[in-house]
């Protein structure tokens, strides 16, 4: 008798079917890895089994009993807890409140805040995220910390099924280790874990079985021991990927942007680096090391206090040929309610208008070309609201928006977060091509392999300072990681 079983699940949105009869089964103590390209239907499947979306047809059993969670509340009662792909904390509330919402300890009918804080702290420590202050407002935490709070929230009471949709996308280093340790613990206690991720090595390492989804169907169920990354990628993409990272570039050109002594107290200090034409510079650091703030500051989105090399406003930066792909696409990358077409052309509205009017024909052409070039799915997405796209495809829309500006200096903050392997390869290839055309690229990433593999040079930050610069070809993950923790390489 399996802990959880779904059979023949169909789901349609506005008459378009996106899940065509999906099945899933797992026993207590299993870790089911779910992999698949962007838009394959992973998140949709997960929302259905956690009661957030109704299925169009299909059936679900838990421990041999037919169940039908019609709301997240129902799912909670069944012991199903979910960490969704998009961050969904209430930013105005404290970490404690976000964790205990709906389950506050009470005394005389009133919330006992002391007990609540204590319980939150205890929970955070138990799941290995003790560094987070439970009284901090959730909105003030970095994205990674918020993700950790999300995970902790799902563990407030011991679940029978824990669903994690891309939990590791924003985690790195010790945080990632803490997550893995947590999952192993849960396994031992008989929790069924469903783990969705684009980071295949993680899936191979953690999962007891791997489900491969493609175009709304489960096309394979594999055992990690019998398969490898290449095979998975091949199954997902429907073809073999020859090589993940393009060959390194050489013969870097002139300096296109120089930063010197850039400082903002509390965030970063005395930052200096150069971005050269034809070169991809990686920027690695642990959560909160200040990379994102630095990039925003260089782009003019946040003020610097001292130093050179920061634009005064995004408009000025763009005028100078700079582009910034931010790390949080929902909050700073997209206007979710607007169409894909509008989102992509946001940066070019003013520069490509004819007289007072937008050049609609050109806009349509440009957008269609980008959808094609970046293989954004579904192919007819241009008039769709961006919010209806899967996470990875949303990321591509953001990238497209900037590519339409023909930038000279490209700042990419976690550009592959939530992006499937095939698309990642596509993005690496594109960034490489852009570099070869003479662009200077700064690639901020929390993915060690990527930050070394896809770049020519790696800058490492620790607590707001650059602690090292390494040639990607000559360095290894250990060395970068050590620098990022403030230890000499």
């Amino acid at each position, binding site marked *: 008798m399996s802990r959880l079983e779904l059979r023949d699940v169909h789901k349609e949105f506005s008459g378009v079917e996106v899940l065509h009869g999906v099945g899933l089964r797992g026993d207590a103590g299993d870790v089911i890895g779910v992999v698949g390209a962007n838009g394959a239907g992973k998140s949709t499947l997960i929302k259905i089994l956690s009661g957030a979306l109704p299925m169009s047809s299909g059936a679900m059993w838990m421990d041999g009993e037919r169940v039908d969670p019609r709301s997240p509340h129902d799912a909670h009662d069944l012991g199903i807890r979910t960490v969704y792909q998009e961050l969904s904390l209430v930013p105005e509330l404290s970490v404690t409140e976000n964790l205990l919402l709906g389950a506050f300890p009470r005394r005389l009918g009133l919330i006992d805040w002391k007990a609540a804080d204590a319980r939150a702290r205890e929970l955070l420590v138990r799941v290995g995220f003790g560094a987070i202050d439970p009284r901090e407002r959730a909105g003030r935490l970095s994205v990674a910390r918020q993700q950790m709070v999300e995970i902790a929230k799902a563990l407030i009471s011991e679940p029978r099924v824990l669903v994690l949709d891309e939990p590791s996308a924003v985690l790195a280093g010790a945080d990632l280790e803490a997550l893995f340790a947590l999952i192993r613990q849960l396994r031992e206690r008989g929790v069924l874990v469903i783990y969705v991720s684009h980071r295949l090595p993680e899936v191979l390492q953690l999962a007891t079985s791997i489900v491969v989804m493609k175009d709304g169907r489960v096309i394979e169920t594999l055992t990690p021991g019998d398969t490898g990354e290449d095979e998975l990628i091949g199954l997902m993409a429907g073809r073999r990927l020859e090589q993940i990272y393009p060959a390194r570039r050489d013969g870097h050109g002139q300096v296109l942007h120089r930063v010197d002594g850039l400082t903002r107290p509390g965030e970063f200090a005395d930052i200096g680096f150069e971005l050269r034409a034809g070169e991809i510079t990686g920027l690695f650091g642990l959560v909160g090391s200040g990379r994102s703030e630095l990039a925003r500051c260089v782009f003019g989105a946040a003020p610097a206090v001292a130093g050179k090399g920061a634009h005064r406003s995004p408009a000025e930066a763009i005028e100078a040929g700079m582009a910034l792909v931010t790390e949080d696409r929902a909050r700073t990358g997209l206007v979710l309610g607007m169409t894909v077409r509008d989102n992509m052309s946001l940066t070019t509205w*003013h520069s490509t208008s004819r007289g007072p*009017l937008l050049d609609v024909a050109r806009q349509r052409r440009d957008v269609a070309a980008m959808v094609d070039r970046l293989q954004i799915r579904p192919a007819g997405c241009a008039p769709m609201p961006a919010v209806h796209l899967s996470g990875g495809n949303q990321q591509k829309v953001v990238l497209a*928006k900037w590519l339409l500006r023909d930038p000279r200096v490209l700042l990419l903050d976690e550009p592959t977060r939530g992006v499937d392997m095939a698309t990642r390869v596509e993005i690496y290839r594109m960034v490489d091509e852009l570099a070869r055309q003479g662009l200077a690229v700064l690639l901020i990433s929390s993915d060690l392999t990527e930050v070394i593999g896809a770049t020519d040079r790696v800058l490492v930050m620790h607590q707001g300072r650059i602690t090292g610069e390494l040639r990607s070809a000559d360095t290894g993950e250990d060395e970068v990681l050590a620098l990022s923790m403030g230890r000499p390489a």
Partner: protein
Amino acid sequence: MSAESARAPRRLPRLVVGGRDLTVEAGFTLLIVAFVAVAATTSDSFLTPVNLTSLLKQMVTVGLLSLGMLVVILTGGIDLSVGSIVAFAGIVTAGLAADLPIPVAMAVGVASGIAFGLVNGTLVARFALAPFVVTLASLTTIRGLAFVYSEVPIAPADPAFLDLGTAMVGPVPLITVIMLAVFAVGGVFLTRTPAGRSIVAIGGNAETVRLAGINVRRHVVAAYTISGACAGLAGVILASRVGIAQPSVGVAFELDAIAACVIGGASLSGGRGSVRATLGGVAVLVLINNLLNLYGVQSFWQQVLKGLIIIAVILVQRVNRSRG
């Protein structure tokens, strides 16, 4: 709004023509056709030229205010001061008409609306103040200024003052033509110009727009200025139509304007709203009043029914919208 997002999406068929989703517009057309059909078959007076002309005229004030309001609402703001601007623009125009050529006086009236809009917009955008309170405060201040300008109503002696309000273009009142022209321009502005698209995008996500290098503040100021201009124009037209300008006119006009936008599907949190559907919302509001009057519903019951009908209308519209 909060609860809206909490609902599971429904799946109903949508009307998509040439890549444009016209479900809401089609719903409106149906709704209005239904209203008109009911009215025409149950009341002898409805389809008379007199009534149709007055319907067209009655749409003008609330129509102009709604268009300006829509632009502001799209940015995620609100403009409560429009009713007071109507009063101020009207009384100033009527007052100046004694000394200045009437077109000049009218231009000054519209300009006063623009000036107030500029102030509203600047306070909202540059000083990052909450639009609701800024425009509530300016509602109070501008109303006071209208009374300071003249405590008593002003009726310009020159009969030419009435021309704007009475002229006809064929069978259609000139002021209705003006309003429709403003809607047409507004529609093109919001869908086909960079500034208009930026305003819509700002309401969706101002930070994303800022990071795209677009000057958010300037566009927000522009939105309030447009609303002020529309209100100023509405005030001038109203004064000309009535032939007398009162400093007390326009109380609660803002509520009707907002209602027209929301009935038309605009979201008060910004980023969503349509010019055509707003015109539909205006038509619905004016039709409700007209029908209640034609049927001779007694005044207090008119209020009771008006509220209930508005609820019914937005229930119908919601079904349309939720086909998302």
